[in-house]
């Protein structure tokens, strides 16, 4: 500190000066940019339009785009501070290779890509093509996903390729495919303003998709029903709150279907014309009487009647769900029951009425459409010979080069590494050490690999720290392309600043790798920029459900995002819904009504582990906190993990608010978590956020996966709570990520 400052002659007037800007108005002078770059938020799938303010080549501020169709100028606290992620102290700057002494050391890009190709090819030559695994993300632009899919499946030639979207949305994808014949959420956000009933199941939008709340506010007619075991912020907004037991949603929904059929509140004409399987469904729900459902859910029969009647009598009921449904061994089937409820009442693809999965990441949708992991690009099916032939013809390759079945899903790739079937792994923009369930297995898996490449915008992260090769990537704000949000709206993402250090865009990395592999000319002829990928993707998507063919970057920018389908020749930009005509993507055009049975969740509480642990999010943080953990204001607002416990349980354990406790399951122990004693949570249940590497919830979660979607059952594992064995740590003091991973 200078003497002038110490004496008080200097009060940093320049730093704290204000000025007036024609766009921002009167504001802190240091936040006033030279130029504004329009883009789309890079956190969640709501897809808010925003501007990045750039001054002297640095992003100094952000601002919601007041004319954007999604957010009308509003942003959540993460979005409002997103420019800080660009200059975070934990950005990855240079390619790093683990040297003989076991340390990551800086190398040149050319060497990095050569080593990568050599190691991948080496493993594949020795152990077979599929000995290479690739784990992608929902964070890249669609253009990059499209390029990556081709590179992995055709260039590297492995089909063991999946994204972290399997940890998030896979059950919605599988559920949609089973019910409707294709992935693709039928509704739009506008439905939230137009519905007369909004039914949210396992979705805490107030914390996780706060900008969607304004659609509810703009809808004075709506009756909001929220089903959630925890009294979330969203539950508190509800007109009818259903505090059901964990994982009893299938019982509740079957009970509602039972009552609707019994009371003639279904659309028989719609059922006859557009669905198959009604008789089996009717038979299957017969035993879900209100009394039986009451026993399974812990709700009163009155609450079940009320929910059924409100939904059944609604003119335009909307059903939204997120991780409470998906993070389950019955996730796909729960989505099917939701779809059953919507189908028997004819509430699919009508204004206000749709079963709508609210997605997670900014571009999880993009990877589902174009990614070539869970399906062939354009929602084409691996299993369909005609789909393969069509795609091969478009690409001008032999159809035999396209796999006829999907490769391993994320958890199977992890377990494949344990079994030494996967020998090399490429992880792109994700942080499995914090995000994958049952950390012990994951660590064993990563330890078993011959070579691990982690490509990320951030380093160190717990996962880059154990990598053999780290590739520094550009992030949101540093590259161009498109994101697709939950409601199928394709929005433009633009580059505002240069990536730091030697970081490159993911597309550049993919193209560079393709050149090394010698497949650049075939797969990416002449590609240099995202637009090259976009133009090809448009042709590939033409005629498909996710038809991009009429879109151009200019058109998207002009309209602040456009919903697909937008085929060639489309002229009107309007809200689109899927299946409005009752024709589904199945072979016979009819949706499937699929009987589903309630089952108890896999790991029931017992004498050793008496609590049911639920995990979730807080508004201030994003996923594993690699992005938000170095944004000072977000860390200030949510500095550490906590565990919610009902006061009755706390009393019986002799625990007090703010005590530090350990969370123990059969698999591991999360150490020294701050206890929050609260009536938010039911007796017998506990809740903790999953963002914090320092208190990693996945040290205790289980290796149980949905058999259809392969999505992990993050919720509902049995735990015991003990007073912390180690002295409480003060979380405000930020340790190095290296220290975090050892926790």
């Amino acid at each position, binding site marked *: 500190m200078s003497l002038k400052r110490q004496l008080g*002659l200097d009060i940093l007037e320049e730093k704290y000066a204000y000025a007036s800007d024609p766009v*921002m108005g009167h*504001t802190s002078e240091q936040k006033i940019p030279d130029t504004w770059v329009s883009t789309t938020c890079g956190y969640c799938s709501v897809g808010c339009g925003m501007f990045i303010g750039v001054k002297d080549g640095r992003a100094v501020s952000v601002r919601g785009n007041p*004319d954007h*169709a999604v957010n009308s100028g509003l942003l959540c606290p993460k979005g409002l501070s997103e420019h800080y992620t660009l200059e975070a102290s934990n950005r990855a700057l240079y390619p790093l290779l683990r040297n003989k002494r076991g340390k990551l050391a800086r190398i040149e890009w050319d060497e990095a890509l050569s080593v990568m190709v050599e190691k991948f090819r080496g493993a594949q030559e020795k152990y077979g093509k599929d000995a290479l695994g690739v784990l992608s993300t929902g964070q890249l632009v669609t253009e990059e996903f499209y390029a990556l899919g081709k590179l992995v499946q055709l260039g590297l030639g492995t089909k063991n390729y999946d994204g972290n979207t399997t940890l998030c949305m896979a059950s919605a994808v599988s559920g949609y495919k089973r019910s409707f014949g294709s992935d693709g959420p039928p509704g739009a956000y506008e439905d939230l303003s137009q519905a007369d009933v909004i039914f949210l199941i396992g979705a805490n939008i107030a914390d996780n998709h706060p900008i969607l709340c304004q659609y509810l506010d703009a809808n004075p007619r709506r009756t909001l029903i929220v089903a959630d075991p925890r009294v979330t912020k969203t539950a508190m907004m509800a007109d009818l709150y259903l505090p059901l037991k964990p994982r009893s949603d299938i019982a509740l929904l079957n009970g509602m279907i039972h009552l609707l059929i019994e009371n003639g509140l279904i659309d028989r004409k719609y059922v006859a014309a557009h669905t198959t399987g009604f008789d089996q469904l009717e038979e299957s729900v017969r035993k879900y009487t209100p009394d039986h459902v009451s026993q399974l859910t812990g709700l009163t029969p009155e609450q079940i009647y009320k929910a059924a009647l409100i939904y059944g009598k609604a003119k335009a009921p909307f059903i939204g769900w997120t991780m409470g449904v998906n993070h389950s061994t019955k996730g796909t089937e729960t989505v099917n029951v939701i779809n059953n409820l919507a189908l028997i009442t004819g509430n699919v693809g009508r204004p206000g009425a749709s079963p709508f999965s609210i997605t997670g990441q900014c571009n999880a949708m993009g990877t589902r459409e174009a990614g070539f992991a869970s399906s062939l690009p354009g929602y084409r099916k691996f299993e369909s010979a005609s789909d393969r032939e069509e795609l091969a013809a478009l690409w001008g390759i032999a159809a035999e080069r396209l796999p006829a079945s999907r490769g391993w899903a994320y958890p199977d790739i992890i377990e494949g590494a344990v079994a030494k079937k996967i020998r090399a792994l490429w992880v792109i923009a994700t942080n499995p050490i914090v995000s994958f369930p049952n950390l012990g297995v994951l660590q064993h898996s990563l330890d078993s690999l011959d070579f691990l490449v982690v490509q990320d915008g951030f380093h160190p992260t717990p996962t880059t720290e154990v990598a053999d090769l780290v590739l520094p990537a550009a992030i949101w704000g540093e590259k161009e392309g498109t994101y697709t949000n939950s409601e199928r709206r394709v929005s433009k993402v633009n580059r505002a600043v240069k990536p730091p250090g030697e970081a490159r865009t993911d597309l550049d990395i993919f193209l560079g790798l393709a050149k090394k592999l010698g497949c650049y000319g075939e797969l990416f002829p002449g590609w240099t920029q995202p637009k090259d990928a976009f133009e090809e993707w448009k042709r590939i998507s033409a005629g498909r459900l996710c038809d991009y063919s009429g879109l151009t970057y200019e058109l998207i920018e002009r309209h*602040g995002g456009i919903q697909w389908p937008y085929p060639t020749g489309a002229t009107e930009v309007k809200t689109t819904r899927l299946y409005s005509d009752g024709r589904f993507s199945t072979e016979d055009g009819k949706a499937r009504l699929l009987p589903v049975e309630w089952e108890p969740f896999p790991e029931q509480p017992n004498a050793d582990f008496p609590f049911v642990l639920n995990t979730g999010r807080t508004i201030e943080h994003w996923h594993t906190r690699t992005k938000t953990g170095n944004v000072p204001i977000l860390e200030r607002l949510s500095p*550490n993990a906590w565990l919610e416990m*009902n006061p009755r349980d706390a009393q019986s354990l002799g625990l007090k608010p703010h005590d530090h406790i350990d969370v123990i399951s059969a698999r591991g122990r999360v150490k020294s978590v701050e206890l929050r004693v*609260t009536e938010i949570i039911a007796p017998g249940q506990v809740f903790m956020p999953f963002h914090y590497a320092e208190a990693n919830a996945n040290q205790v979660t289980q290796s149980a996966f949905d058999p259809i979607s392969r999505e992990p059952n993050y919720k509902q594992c049995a735990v015991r709570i003990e007073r912390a064995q180690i002295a409480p740590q003060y979380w405000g003091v930020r340790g190095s990520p290296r220290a975090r991973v050892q926790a």
Partner: protein
Amino acid sequence: MLLPLLERAKEKNAHFLVTPKTGASSGGVPQCGISFAPDAAGIPQRALLPGEQYRFHFDMTKCIGCKCCVVACNEQNGNPADINWRRVGEIEGGWYPNTYRSYLSMGCNHCMEPTCLEGCPVDAYSKDPVTGIVLHSAEACIGCQYCTWNCSYGVPQYNPERGVVGKCDMCHDRLDEGRAPACVSACPETAIRIEIVNIAEWKREYAAHANAPGLPSADDSISSTRITLPNNLPPDTRKADFFRVRPEDPHWPLVAMTVLTQLSVGAFVTIWLLQLFGKTTRLGVAAMVSIIVAGLALSASTLHLGRPIYAYRALKMWKRSWLSREVLLFGCFSGVALLYAALLWFKLPGSLAIGALTSLLGAAGVTASACIYLVPARPAWNSKHTVAGFFLTAMLLGPLLAASLGIGDRRWLSIAIVAATAGHLLNEAGKFFWLTASDSFELQASARLLSTTLASSFLGSGALLCLGGIILPLFVPTWAGASASLLTVLAGEVLGRYVFFVSVVPKNMAASYLSAGKAAA
């Protein structure tokens, strides 16, 4: 020059607060069915009339606790992350599943009787005559942080990087441009708005609309913020951070300053009394030592300021601020005491009268000093125990200094010392029982701190006083004993004053259950 808004609007010949300005956007039409909130939404669309002012309206039924307002405020004002001019707290009540958790978003309440303004020694605060916005001038501020003690809501926050305080000004200059404040624009739930309030009406009605669970009473300063509360809040609704009580800042320069001024005043009064009773030997030496102590105390006090070079400005508001009065009285005290010491040293006439004046000014200074701490926003300080404690410190340390310098009759001095110590200990014990018996959250919480986190310091200071103020004077009646006694008691006083500063639990709005670092003071 800062002109009132209305004046500036007239000068610019502009219509006051009517023109919504749109941003950098390309002018496309929102495609979804909801209406876009323009920049001027949420602010009044007419000019203020005489007798009116602006205020915040906070709708708790709408707030989802997203904290967009907090982030937007920090961005607007370029503040570091740990300074939040707008904060969001939580309150919680009820029983599962009928649980109720609600959020409280608050900037400055732009009070009708702002306590920050009343206490400010340098007149850094002003209440804008047209808008009623309570403004703070960083330029005028000397960083004494007295306003941070005076505000019941913890609104003014000291920025150590700058050495001055800062606070929410309702984005005064944005309002002037016809734009909404940052928090208002950022709220996705339109829970924060600016309204016009009739001042006289509000003073009659505020009690019903300005109070909320988890918020200190609006009585302290007549908060202008109107709060819409949900119906049927559970009766047990309370702040989420109810059980998280942390020690406050010790303010070490003030620990030194208060203890040393009290030592100096006590010493001069003792010297003067000894002189009065005919004692003459070595009084000059004692007075010289005491004047050095006073000098140290005053130097220490400037270390507490963010801008010590401007310490002299603190004299400015002597008509209103106890802090100004303290500075003024101790300033006069030191001057007169210096004269007194010189008269004694050079054995010049008139010393008895000047000594009387010194004693009087000293006592007045200690009174002013104590009055600084009698603020409603810091309930554990706001009692007669504070005044008694400060005087007892002076009454104990003065004779101790005299005894250790070997002036005066040791027996009488010992009686005075033991009596003052006993009084001091009784006062502390009385304060502790008063705290425990109280039903106010802040007083209870102070008692909780004293009996848990601070127990060893609290009891330690008592033990040191016992040792130095009772045992040593009674059982070791030597010069060495007296010196040891002084040092022991001084240590006990410093520790006790530290406990005084850290054990106060200020009134404040509810915070989050978890909050990093120190809660905003």
